[in-house]
Every structure is written in C-alpha cells, then in structure tokens.
C-alpha cells in the first residue's frame, strides 16, 4: 500500500514523458527518483503540477560528475519526495528554467547558477545569490575542479547598491537597510522602495555570512561532518545533526536503536522550544514590548539548563552522532526534565493568553504582513510560516523520522496568515513540544543508545528531511564509498521562506517591517544564501560590477 503512491507519481511521469523517462526507482517508502532525458525536466514538473496541484519544490541539488552537471529537483508531491534528475553538459551548462511553472524554484536556480555556473534560460532574475558581489566571474566553487586558496583576486571594491529602475518616480524613495544588523543580529541587506510610509517593493541580499560549508564538508570525514553541520546554525543545531546523521545512516543502512530515536525526539523538541521562545521574545522586542522579551528569555533559560544537563552544553549540543546519540539520559535528568516541563507548560499558557489578548501585540501584529494560502503554496514556504497561512504541513507527521511515528501531537494551523498567526503557531508548538518531551521521557524504550558505525560508508545517496524549528530542513548526502562524502547539500528553511518576505511586506508601513521580518524567524547564518526577489526583473545591475557581469547579464531577456 505504501509503495503505490510512489508508483503513481512515477506512472504519471511515464505516461507523459514516454521515452524521455530514462530510469526510475523507489529507494524507500516516500522516496522516489526519476532520471529524465536532458531538457525533459520542465515537462516532467509541469505534468506533476497538473496531476498534483499542491506539489512544492524543496530545493535543487547540483553535482559535478566530471563531464556533466547533474541537477536534482527535489519535489514534495502527494506524500512522496520525488527527485527529478537531469544532466547538463559541463562545457555548455544551459538548461530551461522552471520558475514560471513553480515560482518557488527561483532562488534555488540562482544558487545553482552562482555555485555551479548553470544558466537557466527564461529565469526572470538570474543573478548572484550567495557569493559576494566582488567574486570573480567564471569561478564556481562547488565544481570539483575548483579548490579554495588559489589566491582569488577581489576585483571590485565593495559594491554600491543601485537600481536605476527604482528611481523613476520622484515621490518614491529608496531606503537601504543593512547589512549591519537591521532588526536582527545578523547581516542582511534590504532595499526598500517606499512611497511615503508605504512599502512598495523590497529587494533582499543575503550571503554575507556565506562560509562555504558545503565545500568544506567534502574535506571532512562523515563523523567529523556531524560537528561541522552542527555549526551551520547555532539555534537549530540539533535539527541539522539529526538530518545529516539520518542521511548517512540511510546510506550505510544503519539501524538506529529505538532508545536513540526517542532521545533524538527529546533533544530536538528542547531545541524547538528554545528556538521558538527566543523568537517570541525577539518579536516582543521588535514591536516595542520589551517586558515580554525579558520574561520569555528568562523562561528560556530553564530550557537551556536542561539541554546543558542532558548534553554537556547549553547551545551546541553535540548530542547526535551517526548511529545514535552520544550520551544516555540519566534518571535524575529525566526527573528534572519532567518537573521543568510542568512549570514551562504553565508559563506557555500564560504567554498564550498574552499573545491572544494583549492590546499592544494586537495593534502591532493583527492583520499585518498577510500571506494568503495560494501565495504560500506557490512560493513553497515551509514550517510555521506555511502553517500560519493555512498550509497544513509538518515533516514530523507527513514524513516521520526518529520516534515521531508513534508520538501523539497536533499540528497547529492558522488561516489568518498575518504576523499574529505566525507567532501564535509558535506558541502552540511550544505547548505541543512540551507534550512530546513528556511522552518521550515517559515512554523511553530500553536498550543501547548508539551503535558503532564504520568511518567508511558504502556508495550511495540519501535525502533526509526534518522539521527544524523554522520549517523543513533538507540534507542530501552522496557517498562515493570512502570515508569522505562526495557531496553534501543543505537547504535550510529560511531560504525557502525569505522569498515570501516581499509578498508580506508590500503595502504595509515602514514601522511594520521589523515585526514582519521577525515573524519569518529568518536565520541568515543558517541560510547564508538568499536573495532578492523583484518585480522589475532583468533590468537590475550593480554599478561597480559591470565588468564582472556585463556580457552574461545583458543577454538575459
């Protein structure tokens, strides 16, 4: 029964593509792969969208195979992660865009363009995404024939922002915010186009903390990479390690002991509570409600103390490893966790009341930054942002991992789609997480908490997804049979969500910008990629970079 869904999606493609479908296989329940002929990916994706209108794209993974570049379009389609695989020759890496049929792919195509040099014809705005603006052209760091440290010349001085098209009307003002820590303590740059107090459009530039982690991961062994991916994001570090370990465990066919899976639920949910409380506090700060910020962060301390007791550190848990977790839970910590969860539940219901009824919050968050359900689906947003716009999706329930399969929990969904709904989803999720932790502590299976795993992993590939505090996190790992991965691809939830910021902020006041931004819970260190979306596409350029871009960019339609 379980496999019929995967077969159905594959059959949909086979009917449409015929000979264009070269190969297809199902690696495990909810994971299907199809290899299509060069140039057929567009047809394949539109066939899927016709058959399953709620199909969303998770990301595009590119791999350098030597003579050609392989593109993997990971789609979430009718309860299956379907990977559409297509290759393009490396000598002439040009292929057709899919952004017109699935707009959520815009940033992922730009990411592949930036790091692999694949050009997507028909992409409305194919510009640099992650690398700095003064990065030399023709250097694609994730290709295998590229290696760091070759003394790259920085060609241009730090760029000046300029968009001539945005300067036409005299009443319209451009305001550049950032990149020095606007609102949040992370670097990102926004170019707001304002008419009086109203936001007409916004352009986002990220990548200021791009550290090249995907490249670095290729030079570390699998078990060392657990500690590298942990540092992609300080706040959701557990989500990254769970996701990476699961991918490697799938490649190595490692059976994780049930006790470890249960412990992973505990640490992942503690992580979620701490992340959500952090965000709710910051939301209070950004709307000018500092008292709330102080109280929520005080209560967050208890969660950090629990994480410290369980794992040995407050933030960087270093708890997961390939084959299980690194420490067992002692009965005394289990008791402390249960006791503190009871206290925290009281506090959470108090904060729920505050968020529901406080007049300050009501004025600053209700009806602000609306993202409607059709837009949310079209832009493929994930996590609390999607759930606040009425999209009922949660990886823990839809694509269960660790011990979530048997754990009882609800998925809060709100239809309002405004800042308030996005905050309320998180308040409700904290309450659900508390229930999950209590359930996991009380129903802890006995047995070992880790199995030893060889350093060398067999050849293979795996796609792992977890519900990080900010939404769907995806790791794609490919192994070539050695102790080092061939490719590690990370799609963080903020990259999927930042694209919706433009939809949310348009038409609202300048004073609402911090509240709207914070309701996305963006994590740029985590994302260290992301960029801008703009209506006036194709006509933008950054003055100092003409020499870098000129030819290629001008040719864009």
């Amino acid at each position, binding site marked *: 029964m379980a496999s019929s869904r995967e077969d159905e999606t594959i059959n949909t493609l086979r009917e449409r593509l015929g000979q264009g479908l070269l190969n297809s296989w199902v690696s495990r329940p909810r994971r299907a792969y199809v290899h299509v002929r060069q140039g057929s990916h567009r047809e394949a994706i539109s066939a899927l969208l016709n058959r399953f209108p709620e199909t969303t794209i998770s990301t595009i993974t590119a791999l350098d195979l030597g003579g050609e570049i392989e593109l993997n379009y990971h789609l979430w389609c009718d309860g299956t992660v379907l990977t559409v695989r297509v290759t393009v020759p490396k000598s002439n890496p040009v292929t057709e865009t899919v952004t017109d049929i699935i707009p959520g792919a815009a940033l992922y195509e730009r990411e592949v363009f930036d790091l692999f040099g694949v050009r997507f014809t028909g992409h409305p705005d194919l510009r640099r995404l992650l690398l700095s603006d003064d990065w030399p052209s023709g250097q694609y760091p994730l290709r295998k024939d590229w290696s760091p440290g070759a003394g790259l010349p920085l060609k241009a001085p730090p760029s000046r922002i300029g968009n001539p098209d945005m300067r036409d009307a005299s009443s319209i003002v451009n305001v550049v915010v950032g990149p020095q820590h606007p609102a949040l303590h992370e670097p990102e740059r926004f170019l707001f186009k304002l008419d009086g107090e109203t936001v007409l459009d916004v352009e986002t530039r990220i990548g200021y903390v791009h550290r090249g982690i995907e490249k670095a991961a290729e030079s*570390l062994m699998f*078990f*060392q*990479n657990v*500690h*590298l991916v942990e*540092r992609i994001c300080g706040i959701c570090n557990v989500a990254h390690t769970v996701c990476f370990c699961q991918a490697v465990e799938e490649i190595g066919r490692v059976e994780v002991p049930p006790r470890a899976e249960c412990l992973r639920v505990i640490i992942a949910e503690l992580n979620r509570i701490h992340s959500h409380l952090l965000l709710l506090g910051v939301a209070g700060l950004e709307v000018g409600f500092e*008292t*709330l910020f102080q*109280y929520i962060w*005080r209560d967050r*301390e208890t969660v950090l*103390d629990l994480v*410290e*007791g369980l794992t*040995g*550190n407050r933030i*960087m848990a*270093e708890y997961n490893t390939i084959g299980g977790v*690194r*420490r067992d839970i002692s009965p005394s910590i289990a008791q402390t966790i249960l006791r503190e969860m009871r206290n925290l539940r009281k506090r959470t219901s*108090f904060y729920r*009341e*505050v968020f529901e*009824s*406080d*007049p*300050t919050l009501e004025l600053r968050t209700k009806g602000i930054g609306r993202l409607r359900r059709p837009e949310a689906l079209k832009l493929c947003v994930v996590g609390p942002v999607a759930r606040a716009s009425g999209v009922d999706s949660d990886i823990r329930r839809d694509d269960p991992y660790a011990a979530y399969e048997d754990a009882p929990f609800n998925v809060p969904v709100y239809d309002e789609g405004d800042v308030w709904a996005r905050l309320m989803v998180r308040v409700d999720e904290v309450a659900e997480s508390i229930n999950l932790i209590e359930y996991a502590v009380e129903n802890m299976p006995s047995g070992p908490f880790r199995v030893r795993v060889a350093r060398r992993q067999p050849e293979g590939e795996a796609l792992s997804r977890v519900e990080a505090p900010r939404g769907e996190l995806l790791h794609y790992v490919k192994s070539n049979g050695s102790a080092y991965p061939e490719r590690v691809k990370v799609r963080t939830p903020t990259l999927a969500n930042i694209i919706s910021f433009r939809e949310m902020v348009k038409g609202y006041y300048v004073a609402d910008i911090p509240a709207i931004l914070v309701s996305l819970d963006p994590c740029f260190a985590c994302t260290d990629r992301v960029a801008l979306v703009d209506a006036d596409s194709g006509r933008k350029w950054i003055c100092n970079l003409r020499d870098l871009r000129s030819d290629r960019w001008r040719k864009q339609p």
Partner: protein
Amino acid sequence: MAKVRIPQILREVASSLFKRPSTRGYPIVKSIPPEGFRGRQVFHPERCISCGLCARDCPSGAIEMVEVSGKRMPLFHLDRCIFCYLCVENCPRNAITSSTTYEMASLGREGMIMKPNGQPMNKEDNGEVHRS
C-alpha cells in the same frame, strides 16, 4: 471606545517587583556547571600511546602532535577547539578526560595553548616542546 482591559502582563510585572533579580551576579557569583559539562580537556601524558588518533579526528584541527622528551603527544590549541569531545571519546587509552572548567579567557593566543606536559597556559618552558 472599547472597554479598557488590564493587560495580562501587568500582573506579572507587579509580582516580579518584589522578587530578586533573575540574573546571576557573575563573576562574583559563579554558576556551577552540571556534571558532564564539556569544559577544558585534561591530558594524562603517562597514559598516552602516541597514536595520534585525537589529532586525526579533531574536526577543527585543534590538536597538534608535538614531541615532548622523546614522546609524541598532543598539544591543544584551545582557541580552535569547538569542545565536541571527539578526542575524549575516541582516545583508546583514556589519556584525554573531561573537566568542567569553563573560564578560559586569555589575552593572547599563546594563553590558549595547552601543552602535553600537564599545566596549561605556561609560557616559560618553551624549550621543552619541539614541533614535529
């Protein structure tokens, strides 16, 4: 005008007025880390068999094998250490053990070097360590 409500948070503010502050008075009052906290490692030279596994496994390259009185032993660059404790976990002879020491701030990089011959952060005995 709608009826004026008393915000929930005021209750909380009023009750907090007469409580002690939630913050700790560090550095006068030091917090005691829980058992199992990952602090500065302790190295036991007499147990070391010079296998170099710690240096090979360290994800951040914080361990360097140096020669101390004819024996190759690890030197810890604590400024690079991420305290993942892979060295503690993977040492075959338990020559590296844990401690809960967390106050490691130093004015210079040399203060963050832990030499194999026991005492960390000791500038004088440079002559004894020979980089291999």
